[in-house]
């Protein structure tokens, strides 16, 4: 190889082709995704994220929650995501269009959270219960005590105070970050249907099983 300019052109095109094919290709496909209007429910999905949940997303990101939790449900039959109750259908790109930074995650040291809000609602878990889990730790999850502040009781105790978490004369209240984080977690719902996410049934399933 002696031809300098040609060499650099080659280097550049190697990167450029993958950039054009992958990055630009996917951008034209998904960049303009709009919410899906569900005739049956007369509502568009996904729903916009409340402002406090958007703040919570930043807390989730900066604490690195994504190093233990994913937020992506694999399709039924591919892994045990459905059997573990993480979601009835696979997550698709449209589910994330309103999230400033989707926290798809790479590790499942803890459960998937793509439908945490749905699960919490079904189990009747209140924000206070989720806050208590954050304070105490839960199963293998460490306690996030620094998201709470202990302050001297001054007059009426705060309505948000955790029960029994502080000595007499003090109360334990969640910080704004903790409340935002919980609001974000409870906003995680993929319980609606999207046409591209509907389960696909191969014509001859015996052949596919061998895949």
């Amino acid at each position, binding site marked *: 190889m002696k031809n300098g300019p040609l060499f650099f052109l080659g280097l550049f095109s190697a990167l450029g082709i993958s950039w054009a094919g992958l990055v630009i290709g996917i951008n034209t496909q998904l960049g303009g995704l709009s919410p899906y209007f569900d005739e049956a429910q007369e509502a568009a999905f996904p729903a916009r994220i409340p402002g406090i949940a958007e703040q919570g997303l930043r807390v989730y990101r900066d604490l690195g929650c994504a190093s233990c939790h994913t937020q992506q449900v694999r399709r039924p039959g591919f892994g045990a995501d459905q059997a573990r109750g993480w979601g009835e259908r696979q997550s698709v790109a449209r589910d994330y269009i309103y999230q400033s930074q*989707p926290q798809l995650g790479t590790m499942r040291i803890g459960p998937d959270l793509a439908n945490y809000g749905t699960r919490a609602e079904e189990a009747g878990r209140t924000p206070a219960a989720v806050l208590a889990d954050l304070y105490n730790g839960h199963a293998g999850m460490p306690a996030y005590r620094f998201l709470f502040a202990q302050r001297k009781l001054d007059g009426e105790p705060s309505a948000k105070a955790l029960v029994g978490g502080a000595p007499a004369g003090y109360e334990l209240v969640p910080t704004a970050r903790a409340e935002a984080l919980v609001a974000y977690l409870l906003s995680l719902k993929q319980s609606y249907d999207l046409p591209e996410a509907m389960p696909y049934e191969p014509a001859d399933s015996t052949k596919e099983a061998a895949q």
Partner: protein
Amino acid sequence: MTTALPTKVQPGADENEQACGGPLLLLIGSGLLWLVLGSALALLNLIQIYTPAFLADCAWFTYGRLQAMQETALLYGWAGNAGLAVALWVLSRLGGAPLRGTNYIVAGGLFWNLGVTLALVGIAAGDAAGHAAFQLPRYVQPLLLFSFAAIAVPGVLAWTGRRNASTYAGQWYAVAALFLFPWFFSVASVMLTFAPVRGTLQAVIATWYAQNLFSLWLAPVALAAVYYLLPKLTGRVIPNYDFAVYGFWSLLFFGCWLGGRHLIGAPVPAWVSTMAIANAWVVLFHHIIVFFNVRDLFRSGSGTVMRFLAVGTGAYLLSAVVDTAFSARALAVVTQFTYFQQAQGQLALGAVALILTGSIYYMTPRLAGGVWPSVGLIRGHFLAFAIGFVLLVASLAVAGWIQGSALNDPAVSFAQISERTKVWLQLATAAQAMLLAAHAVFALHFAKFIVGQMAKCCAARPLLAAEVTVS
């Protein structure tokens, strides 16, 4: 095959090297500091997995942040500094002239390390960008980009101003690494941080970036060192060298498509991961050619530098086979989201680290003059490094397989999973502790060497050309 060696030794070759030695030694030295720090953080991080309460009360050291910190320290601090030093050195040697513009290296190196320091503090304080292998806070990204460009300038000058019109494989890989990093880094910086794309597109770009960081930066730097050092050490021409050029271009053209194998089943169109899986097979062509080219490494096991290169290259080739095999959807369904993927990452990065370490052992005496104070320490480092590395990768892989199989069985709870993987993670911790000790010895040895040379340097000039090599 031997070629007639010129009898005339280049005059003053070593003096030239000492002229440019300082800046490169600065990069190597700071790289070693990051290596030790990164390994220490990685050790704490591993302990946290099965001891959730460990350091949990301090926001700066939550598991997530610590992981981002150790990854950044090792990728940008250690591999960044050391990789730059090795690439520049290979280019200057093969270019046949001392590096020009070394001030750029010093200035760039200072700012690069300032950037990595800021990045670590920023991540600890909660400013991480939140993408695997791209955790750098937004204010650090431009700084790193410009420092990299500054450091790369002498490399480009060494290429354009080379003495021979013809070029060698070591140069291609080194130039490719130096030239391409700023491009994909700036694309990632713009599309992920400064003008972020929507939704899960970010995941596609983040995996594209992470793959490029390996395929277009770390791997080429390591290969540049192997291609350069192998004929130096054996005195033989690389066998089947006429294929090296195909190996080079197949890595470049197919390697950057592999990122999507981390997105199997993810909320991105299926073709992204399908494309990656298909390319994972095609890129094996590169690895086959590299194997044919460097097979002498595995034949003559003499010399510690050679051993570092051999284990490193072996791990590099093995890593490609493992990555390809486990990108198949039937296997990925088990290993995805588990420690197994961490094992794959450690295998690939460890391969690069081994090659960089071997290169540093080779080049430092030539840059600083003199000989390494202790051959025993080098051998000890090699043994500890190799054993720790194999143990770490193996135990993480086993833990990951157990974890993945258990995750796919809905009857197994998360508590049971952590119970079953605990012993393997403890083994991985032991391995990481061993690596930390090994790297600490390496860094101290390097410091002792440099301090000794500096003392000598001040005591007596001129210095005789050093002829002793470690190997």
